[in-house]
Structure formats: C-alpha cells, structure tokens
C-alpha cells in the first residue's frame, strides 16, 4: 500500500489495532529521482504480511520514526539513515550501526561514488 509519510504513524497505529503487531523489516530502494521506504508488517495470527510504501523525492529525505510502536524499528531506522541518508524524525540516531562515515555519500544510494576515502567519525 502506498501512503504519504505524513500519514505513516497514523496508518501504523491503525494496522496495529488490526493485529499487525510484528515489524518484519524496514528497508528502502533508491530509484534515482525518488527513494521508497518500505515497511513490512505482519499479522501473526491471521498469517498475513502487508507493506507500507513511502515515496519521497531524493532532495528531501526523511521519514517519521515508528520506534514508539515497535522497538524492532530501532536498528532498522538507524540502518536506513546510514545506508540511504534518510533522516528519521522524532528520535535521535546517535550512533551509526554498520559503517563509520561522515554523513556524505550513503552507500546504498545509486549515486554512490565508489572508492572515496571516508573521513571516519567515532
């Protein structure tokens, strides 16, 4: 289901009420001009998966945090920030997870420049 990022938290809340209370994965795909963040939620009792797709332009990358609904979102959101440079609103991403870089050139974006020496932080 494609939704707007302003409605993301409200939609997640609605889905939790419908039994979708297990977060499988948050990931993203970069389509050059826009980036799509994909939230996969699961209703374990009904055995159903549903996805929420949030589309945003590459110039303005942010999504609201869903961490207050799912603790599982913590590391996924940090990964989203570090791999795609998507800012997470409503929480502090204080430490990078897998890489050590200075915030430029996120690795899973399509305009990633190979072979650049990273300035390391930490």
């Amino acid at each position, binding site marked *: 289901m494609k939704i707007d990022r302003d409605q993301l938290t409200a939609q997640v809340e609605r889905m939790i009420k419908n039994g979708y209370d297990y*977060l499988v994965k948050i*990931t993203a795909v970069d389509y050059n001009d826009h980036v799509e963040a994909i939230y996969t939620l699961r209703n374990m009792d009904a055995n159903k998966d549903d996805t929420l797709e949030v589309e945003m332009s590459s110039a303005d990358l942010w999504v609201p945090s869903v961490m207050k609904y*799912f*603790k599982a979102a913590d590391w996924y959101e940090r990964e989203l920030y570090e791999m795609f440079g998507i800012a997470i609103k409503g929480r502090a991403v204080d430490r*990078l997870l897998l890489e050590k870089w200075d915030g430029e050139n996120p*690795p899973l974006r399509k305009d*990633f420049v190979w072979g650049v020496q990273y300035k390391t932080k930490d």
Partner: protein
Amino acid sequence: MAITRINIGPVHPSTHGVLRLVVDLDGDTIERVEPHVGFLHRGVEKLVETRMYMQSPPYMEKLDYIAPLSYDEAYVSAVEKALGVEVKERAQYARVILLELQRIASHLLAVGTMCNDLGQMFTVFMWAFKDRDMVLKLLEEAAGNRMFYVNMRLGGLLRELPPDFEMQTLDVIDYMERRIPEYERYIEGNPVFMERMKGVGVLSQKDARNLGVTGPVLRASGIEYDVRKNNPYYVYDKLHFSVKSLEKGDNFSRYRIRMMEMRESIRLIRDAFDKMPAAGDMLGMPVKLRSPAPVNKEVRVSRELPRGEALMHMVADQQKPYRLSIRSPSFINLAALPDIAKGYRLADLFSILGSLDLVMGCVDR
C-alpha cells in the same frame, strides 16, 4: 552505587565473532548493554547490485558461515521467483533434505558453543563438532565442498545426489537420534548448567513480538511462528513435522527448542526420502552469465533459516538485481539483546548471548 562501564570485545571468545559490547554495570548487575557491530560489514547488499544474478551465491554463503546452504537457497529462490523459473519436483525434495541437514549441523554447533559459554568447557562442544562433521560429510557428498557448497542452481541443484546418499543419510540421522538424548542427559543433568539457564534471560511473549525477534528465540517465547508451516515453500506442506514452542522464554527454553527442532528435522528428512519421486531429475540450469529476462519486477521471499526468518526483497533488473535487501535473523535477535540482558548479572550476559545463537557475518552483512 557508581556505574562501572566495561568494554567486551571486539575480539572475545564468547562473542562468536567480532562483536563489541559496552556494558554499564551497577555492581555486578547489568544496567545497559550497547552492542557495537559492523566489524564484519562487507557491503554484500551493494556488491550484489554489481554482479550478475548467479555470480552472487558465494557471497550469500559467507553471510552465515555456520549455515551457508540456507542463505544460498534463500537467494537463489528469490532469483528463481524474479526470473519465473520453476523448481523441479525432485529437486524440491532434495533441497528440503539438504536444508534440514544444514539445520541439524547449525543447531549442534549452537548448543555446543552455548555450553562452552557456560563454562562446560569443550565436552559438549567437541561432541557437537564431531557429530556436525558427520553431517558436513554428507553435504560434501552431495555438493562437493565441505563448508561452502554453492550447489543451488536455477530450477534445481548442481548435480544429482549420489546413489548411496539416502542410505548414508539415514545411517547418520539414526545415529543422531540416539545421540540427542545423550546430549540432553549430559547437559540437563548438570546442576550448574541448569542453574544458569533456567529463569535467566527471560523474554516475555509481548516483548518478543515488539522486539521483532525471530526463529528459535521467538518460538521459545511462546509464539508458534515458523515460515515452513505458516507460509510453506517447496514440499514442506506435504511432509510431516510439527512446530514446537515453549512458554517461558528463558535461556533454557531457547536451548530446548533447538533440541526439539533437531528431532523434527530428522523426521522431515526421513519423510522427504520416503515421498521423493523416483522419476525425473534434479539438475538446475547451468550457470551462464546471461540469464533469462525477469518476469517479476519486485519479489519477496521468506525462508526459515536455522537462526530465524530471512526475508529476501529483490528488485530485479535485466541481468543484475537492482536492489537486494536482506532481513537477517541474527541482526534483529542481537538488537533485542539490550532488553533481554538488562537486570541480569554480567556472567549471564554470555549465556544469553550464547542462547541467541548469533553469527556476526549475518548481522553485519
């Protein structure tokens, strides 16, 4: 009392790889654990985007080096789904047999290292290693390599199972069936082990859902979810096995679940050999650089690996994946560690870590 901060790892025998833990202690009680990961990060998701479809399975195997075949299979089935390739029926049975053998090997190692972490130095570990080696020998017979198999091909396997494979496998699993009670007698008859397992590292059902843990960790907390049963792939819906779950969610339950799953895997393998059709072959397409054009643009494949559920989400391009996102089971189980370990003793941290059965290659990707 003042908080003491200590650093564990990145190189530490009990962290099962390169994992750094920063632990805040109040006396001997854990106030906060912060896992620092990424030491084994190889950027596999990015690498895959630069390779042809069938050049990537070797990378996938190095993600989880304890159960390489399972990752290989998960990736290849994502490619199969994207390219619209059907898997031959005999190959489906053969894959199930190999995957379950891999599960037994992986769980044996998990139990062995867990006992090591608990100070039962090397007895169970050596038993497990020896028994695991018998399973690895079988996989070597089938695939040609002892550890990294790369024998999944589009639509089937690299080669037929050898003629005496069934007999050899049945011998090994008969032996394994006699062996599992021995493990249990030795481990569960040990009061020190039981003391440190029962009631330690409790993860309630509600937290398990919220933290998104998966695999044996989820089932030990009372949620009976197994992809093989709930969302069956291959011939799992035709075979007899049951999904086990326990209520308590402590270290001991997580260990018990693995023992029970090994028994179920043995049942599955026997059943799969019984029902495997004699006619037909199991050969897949030979690896060619050019693959058929994809029929599905975006595919999602969910598989039950020994450590939990892996979700391969692939956006397909003509000859290469445009994007492959891997939901790795160890990643999300490790993310739950701070919540599980809080309030227990420092010494319990390693028993909890052992019971989660992490592979750092799988966490860092």
